[in-house]
């Protein structure tokens, strides 16, 4: 009994030490941001000046609005393009399922930096069509959010019997549009929500495309602002981290509650074997 207890004690110590140290590494920068952004460097007291500037500074608040509008545009565009296509492929074009998956997951292996290098000509052409507005970025952002949105939607579609639902609706006289919009989509609420949330989080954190194509989005503004007011940049960074974290935590509560009821193991294995789990997001962000 004693050697076992000693082994158990060693294991507990190991867990506490490892998780404690790693936790420290992750918490300290966040706390430092809070401290740094509220510090008054003149009187060594506290000030909320950097935080109020998030609303009052036109450079930053303008960029925040641009990024939020971009997030909404990207979500709408992504849903309009991806949802009907994925449902349609499941129902009628089964041979396209593998190519679709391959293409949707491709942005995980082709870095965003490479895509933006190749997009220069496409963007010139978009500017010719739509004018020089930052909102053309929404068209490009759909590519970035594609792998994540595809996974959420694919999981949602796999959980319901699309074919039976469609056949039932068709036999009652529904057209294909009715089948998709009024029968299948209402069954996908969780998947649609998670696809939308992760897209919003990615768009709000996106820097690569916007900065290299010279559009003033939130992250570009944060980066520019740091030259004149580092505290304001840090406050804006912390605010955007907290907002994205809130979105993703809500998302994991929404989708985790459902995932745990179905078996946990297969889900974990799927993450390993589909080849590309949540990587490359930092590269896109």
């Amino acid at each position, binding site marked *: 009994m004693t050697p076992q207890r000693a082994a158990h004690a060693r294991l507990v110590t190991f867990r506490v030490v*490892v998780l404690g140290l790693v936790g420290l590494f*992750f918490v300290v920068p*966040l706390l430092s941001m809070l401290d740094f952004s509220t510090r008054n460097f003149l009187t060594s007291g506290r000030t909320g000046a950097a935080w109020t500037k998030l609303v009052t500074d036109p450079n930053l608040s303008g960029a925040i609005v641009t990024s939020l509008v971009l997030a909404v545009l990207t979500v709408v565009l992504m849903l309009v393009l991806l949802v009907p296509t994925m449902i349609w492929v499941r129902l009628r*074009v089964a041979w396209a399922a593998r190519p679709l998956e391959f293409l949707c997951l491709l942005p995980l292996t082709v870095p965003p930096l490479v895509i933006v290098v190749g997009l220069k000509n496409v963007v010139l052409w978009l500017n010719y069509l739509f004018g020089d507005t930052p909102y053309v970025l929404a068209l490009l952002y759909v590519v970035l959010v594609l792998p994540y949105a595809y996974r959420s939607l694919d999981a949602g579609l796999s959980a319901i019997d699309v074919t039976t639902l469609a056949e039932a609706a068709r036999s009652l006289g529904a057209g294909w549009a009715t089948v998709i919009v009024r029968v299948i989509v209402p069954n996908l609420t969780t998947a649609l929500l998670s696809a939308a949330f992760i897209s919003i989080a990615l768009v709000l*954190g996106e820097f690569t495309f916007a900065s290299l194509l010279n559009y003033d989005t939130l992250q570009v503004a944060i980066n520019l602002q740091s030259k004149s007011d580092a505290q304001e940049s840090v406050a804006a960074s912390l605010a955007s981290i907290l907002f994205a*974290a809130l979105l993703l935590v809500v998302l994991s509560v929404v989708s985790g509650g459902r995932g745990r009821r179905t078996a946990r193991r297969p889900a974990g294995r799927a993450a390993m074997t589909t080849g590309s789990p949540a990587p490359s997001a930092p590269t896109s962000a």
Partner: protein
Amino acid sequence: MDQGDELSADGTTGTRGRRVARSRLSRLRPALGVLPFGVYLLIFLVVPTVTVVLGAFAEEGRPSLTNLAGLAEGSVLTALANSIAVSAVTALIGGVVGALAAYAVVTGAPDGALRRLVTSICGVLAQFGGVTLAFAFIATLGISGVVSTWLDAHLGTSLTSSVWLFGLKGLVLVYAYFQIPLMVIVFLPALDGIRVQWREAASSLGASTWQYWRHVALPLLAPAFLGSLLLLFANSFAAYATAAALVSQGSPIIPLWIRSALTSEVVLGRQNFAYALALEMIVVVALVMTGYSLLVRRTARWVR
């Protein structure tokens, strides 16, 4: 719509030919539904990738190898070496620390609150890169950072007067912030595959803890661990935003070379040099990811 296809067959061909044409038509008609998305992907994903590959082999509209030759120039080679070094070191640090953290999590209750908390936090942190991450570390260890000021005052270091954070060492530290959580996410399933029974079997046959790890657990985990390292390597090699915000001058790594090639239009006197750099990046990432998927296939054989 099926019925519509049947009725619309025209009478000009023979019965057989008509049937073939009709079956081909009914096969293709539904495919029109994927056309909008297909066109979108073509313009925004396939065209850019092909542009990069073709552009790397051309200069001023004519086939040329000058851009690729530029990759062999000293400063570009140094940047490649730096990129590989930073990626390898962060992959190793992230891999080892992440694996230890994953083990600490997996030895707890399989469906416990700790595990749920850690996995969802890691899900958030692995997404957290870029400008905001750079500023998190500038606020912590930068010139007037909270921790660097404290360390200078209490331990006599000279962090506040040093710019190490804005060089390669800084990149390694900052990248660890998203590499460790990513490692936890990808390595947890592999650790889940290790059965308690194996340990019991080993110890009932007289194996010590060391022998169990040396001959059973580590050989089983090795492919998954190496695969995860490759994934982390690719992740760090392709990362741009964090480095761009942290390193504002010079181009010590390949992604920042791409920035200067894009923003100054003509680098080393070559218009298409950005394409060549991007192609180099594709090649490295593709090689690494191929290795990754081979190792994953190996792991999948026993993680059931």
